[in-house]
């Protein structure tokens, strides 16, 4: 039985449709990451400034996006934007927007954490040769914080990719949604198809995330080796 089930993947255009769904997933994750990272860098730098009200506001922004589960964030935007603000977006764009704001929040913490962990005497010696604030960030703080930020950002990317799985909930035609359609359409001919379709999607996610995690781990290990001499 289980043997015949696997052929559901190659029936008609099924495999191509799944790949198409995967493309939707990857695209949303990629766009969300690009804009979210840019947003997060700006917010993270702002959070290292002395201005207290600004810091408090940005901290609250972070905490909100951290405390509320992403599924709930998605539904907050899904219901509230169109109904309260008359702002209608197709589901995939709405999801991208939510992800951008979420990634921005998480990224701001990565950036801030890395910036403030640059040793104080580095800042002082930068000041001692007359660097202004912009130059201090540009030549000292940001370059030195990158080795901390890059692995953390790659890990964030793997989280974003995993989290795209919830797009299903607002009916985006992502890989899981298409998988479900294929399972339902073939339920009679291939009762074990569900196993193979979900198995394949499972594998898709793993194949994208595993190399990224591996890369992040390697960079982190190198960073620690360097830091400890």
């Amino acid at each position, binding site marked *: 039985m*289980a043997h015949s*089930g696997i052929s559901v993947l190659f029936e008609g255009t099924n495999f191509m449709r799944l790949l198409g769904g995967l493309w939707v997933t990857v695209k949303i994750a990629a766009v969300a990451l690009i804009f979210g990272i840019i947003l997060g860098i700006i917010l993270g730098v702002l959070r290292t400034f002395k201005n207290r009200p600004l810091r408090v506001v940005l901290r609250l922004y972070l*905490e909100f996006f*951290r*405390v*509320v*589960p*992403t*599924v*709930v964030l998605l*539904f*907050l935007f899904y*219901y*509230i934007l169109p*109904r*309260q603000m008359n702002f209608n977006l197709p589901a995939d764009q709405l999801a991208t927007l939510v992800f951008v704001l979420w990634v921005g929040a998480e990224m701001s913490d990565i950036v801030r954490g890395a910036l403030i962990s640059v040793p104080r005497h580095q800042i002082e010696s930068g000041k001692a040769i007359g660097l202004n604030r912009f130059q201090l960030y540009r030549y000292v703080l940001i370059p030195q914080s990158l080795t901390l930020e890059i692995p953390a950002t790659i890990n964030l990317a*793997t989280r974003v990719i*995993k*989290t*795209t*799985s*919830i797009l*299903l*909930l607002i009916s985006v035609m992502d890989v*899981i949604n298409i998988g479900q359609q294929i*399972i339902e359409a073939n339920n009679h001919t291939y*009762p*074990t198809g*569900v*196993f193979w379709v*979900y*198995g394949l*999607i*499972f594998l898709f*996610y*793993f194949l994208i*995330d*595993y190399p990224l*995690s591996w890369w992040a781990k390697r960079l982190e290990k190198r960073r620690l080796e360097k830091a*400890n001499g």
Partner: protein
Amino acid sequence: MSWAIIQQSLPMFGKGFELTLWLSFVGIIGSIVVGLICSLVQYFRVPVFRQIASVYVEISRNTPLLIQLFFLYYAFPVLGIKFGAQLCGIIGLIFLGGSYMAEGFTGGFNGVSKSQVESGKAIGLSRWQLARYVVFPQGFSLSVPAMAANVIFLIKETSIFTVIAIPELTNTALDLIGMYYRSNEYLFVLVIAYAIILVPLSIILTLLEKRVRYGTFGN
């Protein structure tokens, strides 16, 4: 926004709240047990088990909970293995959380400074004694912030249980919205409910991180 509607929904949310807490609790305890086993097996380099543990950790960490749940709930029955939705949720959460906890413990063990380990060796401690008196006590306290972060993460992940219709908080809210079309009220209660659970934990986490940072770096 109508307070009456909020009030009427509170008993249902109360049940969802309890279920979220209960499933999180069981899932987290299970995750800690699984994580501890995996990290110990890796620390002591137990042959075979150690490879199994690292394969498990990679699979679990690099796939979404949602697919893990679908697999358990929809695909396993095809193989003749069937669980109720809640049991699926718990197993899924432990499958996911075990690897995060394992990494947390391992990170703590690895965080114990080399000079500590070397001074332990220098006074002739055996491998086990070194673990027992030096690496574990320091390693566990170093891993506390990671544990706390995982706890928060896992509680939030229970919101995914809605996809297999476990009536926890998120599912309760979505059901209510589906029935009565009052999204503002129900989403408001939902966010507050998560905040009640997670804000205190998040504050504790911030404090713990500071503690450990001071603890390890001296001042």
